Every structure is written in structure tokens, then in C-alpha cells.
């Protein structure tokens, strides 16, 4: 039935999955070798880069006898032009005289001598193929085509400047490192490598997207992560066939276990410390070029309630905060529904004095409570969306007009009761206490369903909705890991890092659901010892 649903969806979107990507109006560039003639190569390259204004052909002559013509091909928007002129053109055009007497540049050995003796660029590669050459130029390399040679020297001379490393905006902390990922995957990888200085930290590069050719870097610690997990991630990423991959969200949806999942089955973060911690737990990080949002797989429901700061704070406080988060998760999911259920079906549960307050406040309201709550929830969602999309300066005025003016006025005018306003406000605040934004959105959507169920069947309806969610969540897996582990299935040993966090000296083993290859994390008996005990 699952498969049927998927195929039905695909059919309705008129995607049968059988067609390959069709490149309209353009024959795809195929592999074909370069010739020895500079003229021919240049014509071919100019054909490839026709109307590409950012690709520059710089003609020059090698300083030798007889002079050899050469062309540097590069995209001047992608390279550091200053360093390019110094490391390449300056040495080729001016310093060839520094070569020893017995070395003479000829057409046949020019590439070799340039590569081995002259160029000061750190990263050089030689290619003999147009396709590869075009790729190199478009990834920010300078290609040097020399007359009489059928191979081309390409070198990396630094990229164009990107955003500098800043504090992550979506996941700020009080205590902890302040660096966040940026768009360039190389810088992101460097942030991880700085934290894990071991050759066991492996980085594998994959390419996704027929046109965009987005770099996807797979990162894991060998020996801790299960080999089957790496294979699975790789096959899933390699299976993706699409034209342009814009961000990690696309990759996430293409590799997730459930095609129609409401909850995030792959976690994303822009904090390097979180990624490093996850790698040490045997998870895999997936860096996607051009986005600071890095994916972590597999993920569990519990990990969506954890923030990286929990590991920096004192363990008692961290555990307390985590419990607070669990409470606010329940408030965010259930409070409006419970309010509706109690006010509609179970009035007897309200203590007498409170009932008096409730009665007086609701005496003259025109709508039933469910309409009020739904109305206010919708209103809040609109307000939130407007606040996120608008420029920051206007956003404030939206929140003032929306929150204060409309909210206050609708209560004073008698459309909406105080109870609904209090409940919705509390729910809104609680929903922002969930560290993972994607999990928060899932909760917000489910909330509406539960409110409607509660208005039909009261507490029974809520319970039915919850049991449905529970059955669903129990069946979901993220890369083979049950989503609700370590609670269901219960792994008592792994409970040390769920609703509470035990002190670091008791964090003896890695979580078992990501594999048991290297379970032990530290030596035992490292807990604090009393000074006099230590002396004995």
C-alpha cells in the first residue's frame, strides 16, 4: 500500500520515474580529447563557452626560445585574480630565465616544466579532455592551454571571497563555540577537521545535479560508523538524478526513508560542534555546497529535542532544560486541544472556583471555544509567517499592529475570550522552546488536527490522535534506525542521553542504535574523586 501510494503520487505529478532528464535545446557535452593544435583547442573551447561572459581567454607567450603561444582560460568571477596573476602569469612570463641552463622549454615538455619547476600554485591537475577541462574551469581553476601539447595544466589559485564565519543565526547558544557554517563547503569541512584532527575522519566527495554539479561531501569517522550506513547514504545520494540541486533541503527530501513524512527524518544544523558531536556518535554528516545547513543522519526523535549547548552546560541544569523542553513540546502539541476538550466535554475537571472565573469570562462570547482557538491559532501562524518574511525593520511594526492592536481589540470587542488568547500565547511560546525548527513545524501542523479531534470527541479524540501519531512514529525509521529509539524499542543503556544528560564521566558508551562497532567512549572511574582519596 505504501508503494502504491507513492506511485500514485508520482503519476499524479506526471512523473513516471522512467524518463531520464532531457536537456532541451542543448546537446550534452561529451568526452572528447584535446588536439595538439592551440588554434583547434581554442575554437573548441570558445564554442563550449559561447556567450559565457564570465569566462576569460587570456593569450600570452612563454618566455623561451622559440616563443610558445599559450592561453589561460578561467572564470574571473570564481578565482582570486590577484593571486592568479602572481602564481601563474608572473612566473611564466617573467621568471622562466631562472631555470637552470640545461633545461630548455620545448612544445612537448612545456606542461611538465611548468608543473614541476615554475608554477607556485599549491594545487595543480593535468587533463587531456574537454569535458573535464570545462568542469575544471567552472569550478574555479585556471586552465593553461599550450600550443603543441594535447594536455592542459589546471591550477587552483583561491576562490572568490564568500561570507565570513559568523555566529549561527538559527541556533544561538549562551555557552559554546560561536562559529557557524557558511556557504562554502570547503570552509565548513575545515571547521570539522579543526575539531577532529584524525585521519579516521573521512571525507568523500560526490556530485549531484546534472546542470548544477553541486558538491556533496560525506563525512564520517571510520571505525565508529557502521559501514552499511555509509553505503546506504552513498547509494541514496547517487540515486538522485535531477538538474539543479539548490540546497540541503532537496537532498534531504530525496534521501529520506519515508516519502511523505511530516517529521524530519534527517536533521540539519549550522553548528560545527553539533556535527562533530554527531560524528563521534557514529552518525554521518552530509555537507552540501552553497548552503550552511548541514545534514546529519540517522536522526531520532529525541535528538530533535537536544541542543548542542546541553553538552556544555552543567549536567543537572542540562537535564532540567531538557525536561522543560519535553514539557513545552507537550504544551505546544496539546494545550489548545486539551483546552477545547475540557471546555466542551469535560467541564467537571475544572475546580469550582476556576469554573466561576471561566464562566464570567465566557458568558457573552459569540463563538464556541474551538472556533476561538482555531481562529487565534491561524492568526498567530499568519503573524509568525509575516514576521519571518518581512525585512526586520517592518517586521517589528507587523508584530505591534498584529499582536498588540488586533489581539487586544478582538478581546475588547468581545470576539475572542481571554482564555483562548492565553492558551494560544502559551502554546506559541512553548513551540519556540523546541530547538529543532523542522520538528517545531511538524508539531504545529499536528496541533490543528488535534484541536479538531478534540472538538469532535473530547479527550477521547485527543487520545486517538495521539495513538495514531504514536503508531506512525513507531513505524518510521531513519536510515534503518527506529525513530523513537532508545525509548521504543527500549535500550536502557542509551537512556543516559535522552530526557536527561548524565555527567560526562558517566557517558561511558556511544549510543547503540547507530552501531556497536566501537562502543566504549572513555575509561571508567574518571568521576571526580575527593582529594584525600586521590592521595592514597
Amino acid at each position, binding site marked *: *500500500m505504501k508503494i502504491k501510494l507513492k506511485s500514485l503520487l508520482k503519476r499524479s505529478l506526471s512523473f513516471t520515474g522512467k524518463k531520464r532528464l532531457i536537456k532541451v535545446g542543448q546537446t550534452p557535452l561529451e568526452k572528447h580529447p584535446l588536439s595538439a593544435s592551440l588554434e583547434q583547442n581554442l575554437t573548441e573551447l570558445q564554442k563550449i563557452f559561447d556567450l559565457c561572459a564570465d569566462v576569460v581567454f587570456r593569450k600570452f607567450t612563454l618566455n623561451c626560445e622559440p616563443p610558445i603561444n599559450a592561453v589561460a582560460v578561467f572564470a574571473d568571477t570564481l578565482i582570486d585574480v590577484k593571486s592568479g596573476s602572481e602564481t601563474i602569469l608572473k612566473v611564466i612570463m617573467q621568471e622562466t630565465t631562472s631555470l637552470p641552463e640545461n633545461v630548455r622549454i620545448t612544445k612537448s615538455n612545456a606542461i611538465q616544466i611548468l608543473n614541476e619547476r615554475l608554477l607556485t600554485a599549491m594545487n595543480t591537475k593535468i587533463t587531456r579532455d574537454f569535458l573535464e577541462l570545462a568542469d575544471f574551469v567552472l569550478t574555479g581553476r585556471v586552465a593553461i592551454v599550450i600550443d603543441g601539447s594535447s594536455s592542459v595544466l589546471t591550477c587552483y589559485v583561491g576562490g572568490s571571497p564568500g561570507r565570513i564565519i559568523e555566529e549561527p543565526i538559527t541556533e544561538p547558544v549562551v555557552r559554546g563555540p560561536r562559529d557557524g557554517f557558511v556557504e562554502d563547503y570547503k570552509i565548513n569541512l575545515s571547521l570539522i577537521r579543526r575539531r577532529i584532527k584524525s585521519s579516521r575522519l573521512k571525507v568523500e566527495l560526490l556530485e549531484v545535479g546534472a546542470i548544477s554539479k553541486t558538491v556533496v561531501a560525506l563525512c564520517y569517522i571510520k571505525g565508529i560508523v557502521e559501514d552499511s550506513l555509509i553505503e546506504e547514504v552513498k547509494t541514496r545520494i547517487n540515486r538522485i538524478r535531477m538538474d539543479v540541486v539548490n540546497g540541503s533541503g532537496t537532498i534531504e527530501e530525496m534521501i529520506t526513508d519515508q516519502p511523505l513524512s511530516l517529521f524530519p527524518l534527517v536533521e540539519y544544523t549550522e553548528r560545527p560542534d553539533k556535527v562533530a558531536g554527531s560524528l563521534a556518535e557514529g552518525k554521518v554528516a552530509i555537507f552540501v555546497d552553497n548552503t550552511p545547513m548541514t545534514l546529519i543522519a540517522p536522526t531520532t526523535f529525541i535528538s530533535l529535542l537536544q541542543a548542542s549547548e546541553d553538552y556544555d552546560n552543567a549536567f543537572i541544569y542540562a537535564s532540567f532544560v531538557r525536561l522543560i523542553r519535553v514539557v513545552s513540546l507537550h504544551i505546544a502539541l496539546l494545550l489548545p486541544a486539551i483546552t477545547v476538550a*475540557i471546555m466542551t*466535554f*469535560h467541564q*467537571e*475537571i475544572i*475546580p*469550582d*472556583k476556576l469554573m466561576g472565573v471561566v464562566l464570567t469570562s465566557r458568558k457573552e462570547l459569540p463563538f464556541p471555544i474551538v472556533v476561538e482557538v482555531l481562529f487565534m491559532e491561524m492568526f498567530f501562524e499568519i503573524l509568525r509567517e509575516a514576521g519571518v518574511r518581512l525585512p526586520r525593520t517592518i517586521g517589528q511594526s507587523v508584530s505591534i499592529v498584529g499582536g498588540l492592536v488586533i489581539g487586544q481589540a478582538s478581546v475588547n470587542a468581545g470576539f475572542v475570550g481571554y482564555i483562548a488568547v492565553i492558551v494560544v500565547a502559551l502554546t506559541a511560546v512553548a513551540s519556540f522552546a523546541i530547538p529543532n525548527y523542522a520538528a517545531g513545524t511538524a508539531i504545529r501542523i499536528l496541533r490543528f488536527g488535534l484541536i479538531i479531534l478534540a472538538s469532535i*470527541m*473530547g*479527550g*477521547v*479524540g*485527543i*487520545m*486517538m490522535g*495521539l*495513538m*495514531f501519531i*504514536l*503508531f*506512525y512514529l*513507531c*513505524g518510521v525509521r531513519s536510515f534503518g534506525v*527506529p525513530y*523513537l529509539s532508545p*525509548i*521504543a*524499542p*527500549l535500550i536502557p543503556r542509551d537512556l543516559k542521553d535522552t530526557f536527561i544528560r548524565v555527567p560526562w564521566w558517566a557517558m561511558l558508551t556511544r549510543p547503540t542504535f547507530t552501531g556497536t562497532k566501537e562502543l566504549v567512549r572513555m575509561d571508567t572511574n574518571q568521576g571526580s574523586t575527593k582529594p584525600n582519596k586521590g592521595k592514597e
Partner: protein
Amino acid sequence: MEQKEKISGTQVSMLLFVVVTSTIIIYVPSFTASEAKESAWLAASIIPFAFGCLTLWVVYKLGSSFPTLTIFQSCEVIMGKFLGKSLGLTYVVFLLFMDVLVLREFSDFLNVTTLPLTPRIWLLTGIVVLATYGAYQGLEVIARAVQFILGIYLLGFTIVVLFALTNFEVGRLLPVMEDGLVPIIRGSIAPASWYGEICLLSVLFPFVKKPAELKKKGLIVLIAIALFVTIDVVMTLGVLGAGLTSAYTLSFWTLTRSIEIGEVAQRLESFLLVIWISGIIIKAAVLNNLICLGITQVFGRKTNVVLGIVAFLELFISANLGNVLLVNVILSSYWPPVGIVFELVIPTFLLVIRGVRDKFSSKVRGA
């Protein structure tokens, strides 16, 4: 239904605990008290516990002689194709009726207590849809769901019991065994049949990872159930007294209504409702799954069709079963003997036949 999923011994025991106690928690006090009066807690614990142990032993023996077969299949092996299939089918019907009764317990309870105006058919449809979804997701998922809710289930029960202690009087439990043993034995028939629901193990047996654990874990489950039920009955008797306990059909629910803690919390019955519903939904989902499994193994049909048929059957039968009183009479008087036959008598019979055949065939081989 090709079920290759495996669940651990702990998961099975948690599952059985929730399955057995979710019916008991509501109905046992009044059923036992109407026969055994003040000694109801004895009726609910000792003899049913012994019965449960016996059932466990028989089912375990039967299961360990056919470790890869469910009872639907082992019937066929032991009794031959026609008789075995018929017996398997009766088992399916037995489970189906057990399920129907569970659904009716659910809808009647809600109709009587909190949702008097909601048509029964909607409540039934709701739970049938949920149970079918659970059954569709599979045994593994249900087992995980049980692990998730068991903590909440026990916590809720404990809170109710602790709060109810304020109204508890030991005097209401006296005198012990006023009329001798006979009323106690009569009163223990109904709970015995519910303890005997542990016979579901005969269907679950092939899915357990280490079947050898089941002997010990099954016993632990029985002890836990006995403890749970005893506390349940003792609390109800101690708060309401024997007369009221037997007068109310849903006496434990009445007990939660009487709770009042200062001016903060009163009438916690909705609270009980929540934990009880989670249990009863699990029970319905498990039974649903096992019925589908049974039908598949007896007739050899495909899964999803069976799920639909079973859901429709359940809905149809449970909607047309008659009124609340009739269901109560069935639950208290007619169901227990039937239950005992299917839970203990038939498995024992199967075990004996198998023993006799083994002996016979070994003699033949020996000669």
C-alpha cells in the same frame, strides 16, 4: 501475512501486560465483588494467577515443540488438514469475538461515562480505523508503541491509586472469606479467563527472538498482572465498599471520580480515561493483527484485503451486538467459560494429542 519481524522477550511481556490489564482494570472489581463480596481481591488474584500459570505452561510447551509455527499452523500439523484448519478457524473466530468485545468495552464505556451523545458507530469506527492502522504497521511497531506508553500507563495508575488512598479504609475489606471458598471460586472464573489471555503467546511465539526467555518473563508478567489487579480490586473495595463495587459496573472509574485533592485536582476520571484508552487501543491493534495473521495462515490470502475484511467484520458485529447490558452479561457470564475453553482446554488437548502421537509413532518406529 508474511511476517518476518521479530520482537524481544521483554517487548512481548510488556505487550501481554497491557493487553491483559487494559480490560481488567475497569471490569474486574465489580465482577468479582458481585460474587465474592469483601473477598473479591482474593478471587481476583490467587486462582486466576494459578490458572494463568497453567495456561502459560501449556502454551509454552506447545510453542516450544513447534517454535516456528503459530497455533493456527500447529493445529494443522497435529490434527491433519481438515480438522486442523477448522480448529484454526475457530481460533480466529474466538480472537475476532475477543476483539469485538474489546471494541464494545471501549464504546460502551465512553457512551456511559463521557460521551453520552456521540453515536456508538462513530466511536467504533474511530477505534477500528486506529486498530487497523496499528495492525497494518505490524507487530514490531505495536510492540514499540507499548514500550512507549507502558511508563505513562503505570504512572497514571499509580497516581490514581495514590490519590485514592485518602479515602481508603481497611475496614471495608473485612470480613475475609465470610462465606467460605465457593463464592471466591465462582468469582474468579471471569478474571481467570482474562489472565488466560496470556494464551496469545501461542500466536506470538514464532516472532519472539529468544523463545527460551518466555518461561521466566511470562511468569514475571503474570506476577505483575496479579499485583496490578490485586491493587486495583483492593483499592476499589477499600474506597467504595463491596456493595457499591458490585453495584457499579465500572467501579474503578467511579473510584477515580471520588478523588479530590484540595481545590486543585478533582474528578480525575478523564485522566484514567486517557491511560485506559491507550491500553485498549493497543489491545485492539494486537488482536486485529493476530486475526489477520490467523486468516492469512488458514486461508492463504493477501494482507491488505484481509485487513479490510477484518475491519469491516469487527465494525459490523460490534455495532449489532445489542445494548450495554447485554454486553455486560456476555462479559461476566458467557465469555469466561468460552475463554477458558480456548485458552486452556484446547491447547492442552493439542498437547496431549501430540504427546500420544509421538509415543505411538516412536513405538511403531521401535518395533
